[in-house]
């Protein structure tokens, strides 16, 4: 059969969602050939998280469309070639490059464009908009030489932009025409609370002020800005973020009906006035007459359009414009009838000016919750929004819902208060009933499974906490064991087990599981207990029964890779290494034919060692003075450093010396998860200490200590724990911090989520480790002293004992035979693991006899 042609104009978030929904329909791929015309040079990306690009999220990470998605569905994706005209009679689209594409169905998802107020000077060099990754790149470049930046527009994006400028070190102003910030979402009270919090961050806010003109210098660059309230600002960078307008020009030009205030008019099935053309997202005026600038309603329209084209039925009659976000560290949420426009509606307001918290609930005549505004503490949003949307009576008196969680006590509301029809995940349109059904009907037994089954919580993630509560309630109701304990063998948490082991002086897993647990243990509890035993100073981690508890990485003191080979990382404290050291590592890697790569922690990783080669590799490393880098352990990894005062023109302290001292002090320290650290020699922060579990930044007076930073999947900036510490106080504080963390954290809980979870948060942590409020600091310090005293290099200890070396054989009955399934093929002058389908002829010889043997990789 001849395939029909579908052309999608615009590849933004909504366009991509449309493709996903459309191609998930039965027979869509069989019946349709899909062409996508995109203006931007890259496939769809997450515009909601656009600002995170400034803090290091890459374009790749923001991408919403994998290459494999395009390939798998045979989509003809034309990047950088937008549609410029539609011929409705011939049913063709012409692109900017002059290509003409025919269609049977055309879907317009052209989004919106930033509104730039018509002020003189708005085109000057130094004026920017905030919409695409290219815009952000231009702003970043301009910011490098700018001193003062002004953001026009105090809405969501404007405040995000202001935060970004502030983070790049600019003096920052926000100019908002309305009398308050985020005028659309919050009321005057909320706007005032938000303003206070934002001004505390050093951003100057001008509300009720319009931009009158932008003045330029002789070179055409922005110099000044005049506001309607008479203020004159000296600026050299302007970001316009004063709202968006639907991009409906293409539709206007081909004669489609558009709304009075813009937006392509569509019905509830997203059909335009031409039956062959649909429009979705921000470019469309929905059936309720509104143009939605949020991704949630856009996604709902994408789904409706996908169903419309494939013969299903889906409708979009209006969306929920509730929002919750974190702006410059301040929680802001608004939902339902936030402005009390319903006749007879009454407000209940809670304000704590000192803490910068403002909360308002809008209650209807019948007592039902209609909407609300939350600023400074939006914890209750996930419960309140579904309540407002479903118009159910409140589960508790409104004042109780507004009080801080601690004061509300048992009155705090969880998912149990929600009616079944309440929408829990608005990104994926999942109700509470659907979540419950995932457990009761589809047999899901964990939060993870429910998320996979329903997609709930996989969008913006704001509902994850609520979702977790609902799923746990449902699991409990279904009789599925609640998962507070570590695993089926222990009903205790890791912190509780730590206390049991410490107080009772238990030194073996057998005793612990026999006395306090059940069964034989598993891959969850065994490594946890091994780690606890190690943290409490029970010696070499691989002797006796402790050996059986370790993950394969700890058991072989190396990191398992995908083909069963291991990688080897010697410690390079502070990233400082001599030329001889480098040569030694190079020689060893060359002699054993290992793949080498520089790690993010300033050391060298050598890949491709077979298990039987590990002792020989390490013998040479140990002979040359290297020791284990613990890359395989839940332990201290590295203390990264910048080059510091000794060399750097800007350094104010010797960051390398301190990094080495800290790395040698805490090397081998077993903890609930890996520990990373860094030391920067000045405030320029080249060592990126604020993204580490503990980071130290030099000041003229001493050292600032940051804790709880994290890179990875959920990046978090570290919190400043203490300032201007001298060396001794710094080390003592880190000792206490680390031991307190090891004592109380959950399994695989990095310091970042641990601090977030800690009752009382950072203040409590300060009280414990600086003021000794729990009276445990002497204990913590003693534990650390014991660790430092008893540290031994695990590899040297292993090599010294033939009994310990027995585990490093390929086959127990053929120790001389290397594992033939560990195979490699050449790539870029080195080697990599062979994939299963790669035939054996191109193998690199994996058997390397000795140091003199030359290895050819091609």
């Amino acid at each position: 059969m001849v395939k029909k042609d579908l052309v999608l104009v615009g590849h933004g978030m909504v366009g991509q969602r449309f493709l996903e929904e459309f191609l998930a329909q039965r027979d869509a791929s069989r019946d349709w050939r899909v062409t996508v015309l995109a203006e931007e040079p890259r496939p769809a990306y997450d515009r909601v998280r656009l600002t995170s690009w400034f803090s290091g999220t890459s374009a790749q990470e923001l991408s919403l469309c994998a290459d494999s998605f395009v390939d798998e569905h045979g989509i003809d994706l034309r990047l950088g070639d937008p549609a410029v005209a539609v011929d409705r009679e011939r049913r063709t689209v012409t692109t900017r490059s002059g290509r003409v594409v025919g269609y049977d169905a055309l879907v317009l998802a052209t989004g919106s464009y930033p509104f730039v107020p018509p002020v003189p000077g708005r085109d000057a060099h130094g004026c920017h908009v905030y919409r695409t990754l290219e815009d952000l790149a231009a702003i970043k470049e301009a910011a490098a030489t700018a001193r003062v930046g002004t953001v026009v527009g105090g809405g969501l994006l404007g405040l995000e932009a202001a935060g970004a400028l502030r983070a790049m070190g600019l003096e920052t102003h926000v100019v908002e025409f309305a009398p308050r910030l985020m005028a659309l979402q919050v009321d005057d009270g909320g706007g005032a609370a938000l303003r206070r919090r934002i001004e505390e961050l050093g951003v100057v806010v001008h509300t009720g002020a319009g931009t009158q003109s932008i003045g330029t210098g002789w070179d055409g660059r922005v110099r000044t800005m005049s506001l309607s309230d008479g203020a004159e600002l000296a600026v050299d960078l302007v970001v316009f973020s004063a709202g968006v307008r639907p991009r409906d020009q293409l539709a206007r030009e081909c004669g489609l009906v558009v709304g009075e205030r813009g937006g392509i008019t569509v019905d509830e099935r997203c059909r335009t006035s031409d039956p062959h053309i649909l429009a979705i997202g921000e470019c469309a005026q929905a059936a309720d007459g509104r143009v939605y600038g949020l991704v949630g309603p856009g996604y709902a329209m994408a789904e409706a359009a996908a169903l419309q084209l494939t013969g299903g039925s889906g409708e979009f009659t209006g969306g929920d414009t509730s929002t919750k976000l974190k702006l410059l560290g301040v929680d802001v949420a608004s939902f339902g009838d936030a402005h009390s426009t319903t006749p007879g509606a009454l407000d209940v307001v809670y304000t704590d000016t000192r803490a910068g918290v403002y909360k308002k609930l809008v209650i209807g005549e019948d007592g039902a919750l209609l909407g609300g505004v939350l600023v400074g503490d939006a914890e209750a949003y996930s419960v309140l929004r579904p309540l407002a949307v479903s118009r159910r009576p409140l589960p508790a008196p409104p004042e109780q819902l507004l009080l801080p969680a601690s004061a509300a006590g048992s009155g705090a509301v969880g998912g149990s208060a929600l009616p079944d029809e309440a929408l829990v995940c608005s990104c994926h349109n999942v109700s509470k009933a659907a979540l419950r059904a995932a457990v009761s009907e589809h047999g899901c037994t964990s939060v993870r499974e429910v998320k996979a089954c329903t997609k709930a919580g996989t969008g913006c993630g704001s509902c994850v906490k609520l979702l977790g509560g609902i799923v746990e309630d449902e699991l409990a109701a279904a009789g599925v064991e609640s998962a507070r304990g570590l695993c089926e063998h222990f009903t205790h948490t890791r912190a509780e087990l730590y206390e049991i082991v410490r107080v009772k002086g238990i030194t073996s897993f057998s005793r612990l599981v026999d006395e306090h647990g059940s069964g034989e243990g598993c891959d969850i509890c065994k490594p946890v207990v091994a780690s606890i035993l190690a943290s409490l100073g029970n010696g070499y981690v691989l002797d006796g029964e402790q050996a059986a508890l370790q993950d394969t990485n700890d058991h072989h003191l190396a990191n398992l890779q995908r083909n069963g080979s291991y990688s080897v990382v010697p410690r390079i404290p502070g990233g400082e290494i001599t030329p001889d050291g480098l040569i030694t590592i190079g020689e060893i890697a060359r002699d054993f034919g290992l793949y080498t790569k520089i790690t993010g922690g300033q050391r060298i990783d050598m890949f491709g060692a077979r298990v039987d080669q590990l002792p020989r590799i390490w013998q040479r490393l140990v002979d040359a003075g290297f020791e284990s880098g613990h890359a395989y352990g839940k332990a201290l990894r590295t203390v990264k450093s910048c080059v510091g005062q000794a060399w750097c023109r800007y350094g104010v302290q010797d960051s390398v010396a301190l990094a080495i001292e800290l790395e040698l002090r805490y090397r081998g320290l077993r903890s609930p998860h890996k520990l990373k650290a860094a030391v920067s020699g000045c405030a320029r922060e080249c060592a990126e200490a604020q993204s580490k579990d503990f980071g130290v930044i030099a000041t003229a007076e001493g050292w600032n200590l940051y804790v709880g930073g994290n890179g990875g999947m959920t990046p978090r900036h570290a919190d400043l724990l203490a300032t201007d510490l001298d060396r001794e106080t710094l080390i003592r504080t880190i000792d206490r911090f680390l031991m307190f963390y090891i004592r109380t954290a959950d399994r695989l809980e990095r310091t970042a989520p641990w601090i977030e979870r800690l009752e009382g948060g950072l203040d409590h942590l300060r009280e414990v480790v600086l003021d000794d409020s729990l009276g445990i600091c002497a204990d913590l310090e003693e534990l650390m002293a014991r660790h430092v005293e008893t540290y031994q290099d695990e590899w040297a200890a292993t090599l010294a004992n033939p009994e310990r070396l027995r585990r490093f054989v390929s086959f127990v009955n053929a120790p001389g035979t290397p594992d033939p399934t560990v195979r490699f093929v050449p790539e870029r002058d080195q080697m990599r693991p062979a994939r299963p389908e790669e035939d054996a002829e191109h193998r690199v010889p994996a058997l390397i006899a000795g140091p003199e043997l030359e290895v050819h990789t091609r």
Partner: protein
Amino acid sequence: MTVDTQVPAATAVVEIAHDERWTAVCRYGELVPGRGVTALVGGEQVAVFRDRAGALYAVANTDPFSHASVISRGIVGSRGDTPVVVSPMYKQAFDLRTGKCLDEPTAPDGSAARLSVWPVRVTA
């Protein structure tokens, strides 16, 4: 498959059945409770385990999910009453008695997620 034993001597010989005969692979004392070793039997890699109580198990060493020969390096434990080994690669659990995967029915390539099992015994 499993053979119950009355704590054999460390020097006792562990044997695996292959091609209708028993092949000696190691001494009982070479097996650490809760850990495994790999043996080559008839050209195939067999992971041999000893649990805390002393029982022995022998299953295929190749992990169906990663195709890597790593099962012997997994952690031994229990799930309910089922003795299991957990693959160190992607952490699926396998029943040591039957080789059956308890987490997923099929491997990514569509084959059944199951390890072959060998009879194993100890002789003095």
